[in-house]
């Protein structure tokens, strides 16, 4: 009881300090705030992105151009963080070999039975919905240049389509289409695709992930279009990793690392 009093007190004090800090923030959308106008004597980064990013990269959605080009290095390691999270969950939960493990005893086969109409309705509906979700996910990945979206969101939606398959039927149905071996390989390949764009740019004499020099390899009109196309390439790499890791996390969490039966 006493610990709860102290916890509440700590939350209240921290919360009031944070709220006090908020009063010093510039107003929402204030054009004179340092983030929008820059500090005296130097140009504002936001102003540069807003006015120049279309000319630099020919990508209308400037969030995508900042994410995948100006801050490409950052995004690459965000993808590595997701990969590392998936691998950590794999390392903690996954049970391999050892038949004596107590968790393996509660395994019972769990398939469709005659007369179980609720499962048939759910299973059929999900089988109709899943292709639509996957098509939308591919659209989100490919259309990230022009509308909100990109590799992370599209990858999560694509991973969610496999999770829906696993939820509606059982995990084996999803694992038959996306096995443990293939999702591990795809997770690694995603990061390698991203890093390959950086390394190839380096080999052609520019900085890591400086896509402009990839122009002769991509057969584009100018370095701007090469940047645009390379961004699509790295988004696809991100989508590979995110899709695989999202499904891997679900598969391991829902079966206590056995990869059998599931919810």
């Amino acid at each position: 009881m006493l610990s709860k009093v102290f916890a509440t007190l700590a939350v209240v004090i921290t919360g009031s300090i944070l709220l006090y800090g908020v009063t010093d923030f510039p107003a929402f959308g204030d054009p004179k705030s340092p983030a929008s106008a820059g500090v005296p004597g130097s140009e504002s980064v936001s102003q540069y992105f807003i006015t120049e990013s279309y000319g630099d990269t020919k990508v209308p959605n400037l969030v995508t151009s900042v994410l995948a080009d100006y801050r490409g290095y950052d995004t690459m390691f965000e993808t590595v963080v997701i990969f590392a999270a998936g691998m950590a969950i794999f390392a903690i939960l996954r049970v391999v070999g050892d038949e004596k493990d107590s968790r393996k005893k509660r395994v019972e086969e769990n398939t469709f039975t005659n007369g179980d109409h609720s499962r048939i309705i759910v299973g059929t509906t999900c089988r109709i919905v899943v292709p639509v979700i996957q098509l939308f996910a591919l659209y989100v990945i490919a259309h990230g240049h022009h509308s909100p979206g990109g590799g992370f969101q599209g990858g999560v939606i694509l991973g969610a389509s496999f999770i829906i398959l696993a939820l509606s039927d059982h995990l084996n149905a999803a694992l038959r289409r996306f096995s443990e071996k293939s999702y591990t390989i795809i997770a690694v390949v995603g990061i390698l695709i991203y890093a390959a764009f950086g390394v190839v740019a380096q080999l052609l004499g520019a900085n890591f992930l400086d896509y402009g020099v990839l122009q002769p390899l991509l057969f584009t009109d100018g370095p701007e279009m090469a940047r645009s196309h390379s961004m699509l390439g790295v988004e696809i790499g991100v989508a590979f990793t995110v899709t695989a890791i999202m499904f891997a996390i679900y598969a391991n969490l829902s079966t206590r690392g056995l990869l059998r039966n599931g919810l």
Partner: protein
Amino acid sequence: MILAFDIVILVFLVIAAIISLSVKDLLSASMIYGIYGFLICLLWAEMGAVDVAFTEASVGAGISTVLLVATVFNTKRKSSD
């Protein structure tokens, strides 16, 4: 920024946060956490950060809820505190 819309979302946000922390049934807590994620997504969209809102909708309200539910099914359903 529409002030009335903001206030409604923020009030529901606080309610969802308090309920998801205080409810004993962990399955309900994770569902309400999903609602919390969706309300934050609305708030991002309303502030014009559409990309962030999209990420929040897919990750925060979508996948996180599923992962929490999967975890609740494999541990125990009642909270002990």
